């Protein structure tokens, strides 16, 4: 009987998957795109249901030490041509510049505070930065759940950065594809702040790419929907496409 119990526990420990392992596989599932180019449609919905549309063009360069990205605003008309250049870093603050076309001015931005709202949306800057396991602490095993007949891992992580707006994040990850389907964000008071629902995953050149994220803020009842369109990857973009010179181009 004792032997049987020990064998059972041994099998369970073999089957258990740590939060960290799931996160690493989840990272791997969406990595390898080298670079991406897309149009981003952002819909801001206030608590009364009123909608505002934003349109952006974005290119990203995948890099081990942190991605580089360039975003150009296409609408509303008064911010058309405004550009935002971001060099992500895992171990220090990101380098960020904003180009204001009306003044022809490049402004340096202090990126320490990652919890600030991106363009008045429910997304914080840190929500839009690339996923990197080194930015989080993972402890213990992932819980296994079954949602709508699908096996999911529930993965808990804590941001390493003291400047994050979150104390923890809980992700629901498909056990087969390791793609994230939902993410809960807990604020500094450890209360549920936002939920992001990930949709419309597409496989482009054998790499999974997200098509839509709906971010619902539970505390102010606002929502933002972000949709990626006309996305292409492995376009051959290089470092020079993310040089500061592109801001004035």
């Amino acid at each position: 009987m004792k032997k049987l119990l020990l064998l059972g526990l041994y099998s369970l420990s073999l089957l258990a998957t740590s939060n960290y392992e799931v996160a690493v596989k989840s990272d791997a599932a969406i990595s390898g795109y080298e670079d991406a180019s897309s149009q981003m449609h952002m819909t801001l919905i206030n608590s009364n249901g009123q909608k505002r549309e934003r349109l952006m063009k974005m290119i990203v360069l995948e890099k081990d030490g942190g991605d580089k990205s360039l975003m150009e605003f296409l609408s509303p008309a008064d911010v058309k041509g405004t550009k935002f250049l971001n060099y992500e870093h895992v171990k220090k603050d990101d380098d960020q510049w904003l180009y204001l076309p009306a003044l022809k001015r490049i402004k340096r931005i202090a990126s320490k505070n990652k919890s600030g709202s991106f363009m008045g949306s429910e997304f914080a800057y840190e929500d839009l930065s690339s996923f990197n396991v080194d930015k989080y602490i993972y402890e213990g095993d992932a819980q296994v759940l079954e949602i709508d007949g699908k096996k999911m891992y529930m993965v808990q992580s804590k941001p390493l950065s003291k400047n994050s707006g979150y104390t923890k994040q809980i992700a629901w990850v498909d056990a087969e594809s390791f793609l994230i389907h939902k993410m809960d964000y807990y604020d500094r008071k450890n209360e549920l702040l936002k939920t992001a629902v990930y949709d419309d995953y597409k496989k482009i050149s054998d790499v999974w790419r997200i098509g839509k994220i709906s971010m619902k803020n539970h505390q102010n009842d606002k929502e933002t929907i972000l949709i990626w369109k006309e996305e292409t990857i492995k376009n051959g973009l290089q470092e020079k496409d993310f040089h500061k010179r592109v801001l004035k181009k």
Partner: protein
Amino acid sequence: MIVRLSISTLLLGTSLLCDVEIKGHLDLQAQAYLTHPEQKHPDNYTAMAQIELGYLKDDFEAIAKLSAQQDYYDLQSSSDHNDRSFLRLDELYAKQDFEDSQILAGKSIRFWGALEVDNIVDTFNPDDLRTDLFDTDKLGVWNASYTQYTDTGELSLIIKIDEQDQPMAAYPYVYYLFPEYVFYDKSLQLEKSRNRPSVFLKYSGSTDTEYALDYAFILENGYDSQRYFTSDGPLNGSPVTFKQHAYLVNKAMTYNTLVVGASLFKMEALYADVIDNKLISDFYHLGLGVEHTLTQVYEQADLGLIAEYYKYDTLQSHKYSDLDLFQIFQNDLFVGLRYSFNEGNDASIIGGAIVDLDYHEQSYYIEYEGRLAETFKLNLDYRYTEPSPDTLTAFHIMGRHQRLSLKLGYYF
């Protein structure tokens, strides 16, 4: 043959037009001067428009930008006329990018600087003095440049080939800089030819260090952006004409931004070695600033705390002083706040006080900016200036001033 040529030309024209991007805005502005010198206008109504046509094909870009302004009083009788209306070509240039370099030629506008209130090194383009004194409205400059890019920066050789006249609004516009009996002749007086090249060598870059630094150094040989005025008669109340003069300098400039956590430390500085001018002394100008941002002070709103200090001085005592040169930021301190709502309208409020530590002048302002119905932009501001009681500064000549301003812009 002619028909075929016409069709080809039409097709080429249509194809080119397809690549042309048009953007611009139309603005209506109303200003009420609650406190102002007695004989000057008590208010002002202005319509403004700007349109930009851009052609972009691969690494080639061509830009044309036009501005127009119509002042209400310029439609009235001649005594109210204040010469603020114009149609102006701001930019007309072509730019070609190569692998590690770029060439640009034409009429263009550039920006140099890091500070918020006054960019003392932003000297490439002169300002048009027919628009709101508190707005920056630059005149395009004919120039050519070659830029070589490195991994972390760029080196540019820029040659300015024309010195612009600087038009100014006329009396009784509230921001006319001189007394009523002074007539301003805008034709610029130069030491050499108007087309004597001004040469700029600029190197700028960013460091990839723990505390990131953006830096820029500029050397200039040519006409200075600071100008001086001479009168054709004594200033005793009889009509006189003022002429604007440009002189030659060797100038070194720098502007830098250092990022330390949530704070930006900024510095702009310049030193001008004036070449053989009997009236104008060598001078320096320094600006230091810090901007610290507190995020989510209320819901999603951010609060920026800004402080800046400016120091200007001439180095030879028997020549024109800062007062003769209408230098405003000669020993001035600015403290201000920027409240960004961070919501769908991109609304913000910025306010602050500028205190002149030498001449006991104060200037206060608060400005709201936000978007309306997605295509309109609203600006509201209030300003109050208390001029020096006993020193002949630019604000003293302009008189005590209090205004309310409303601007509504349609963007397309």
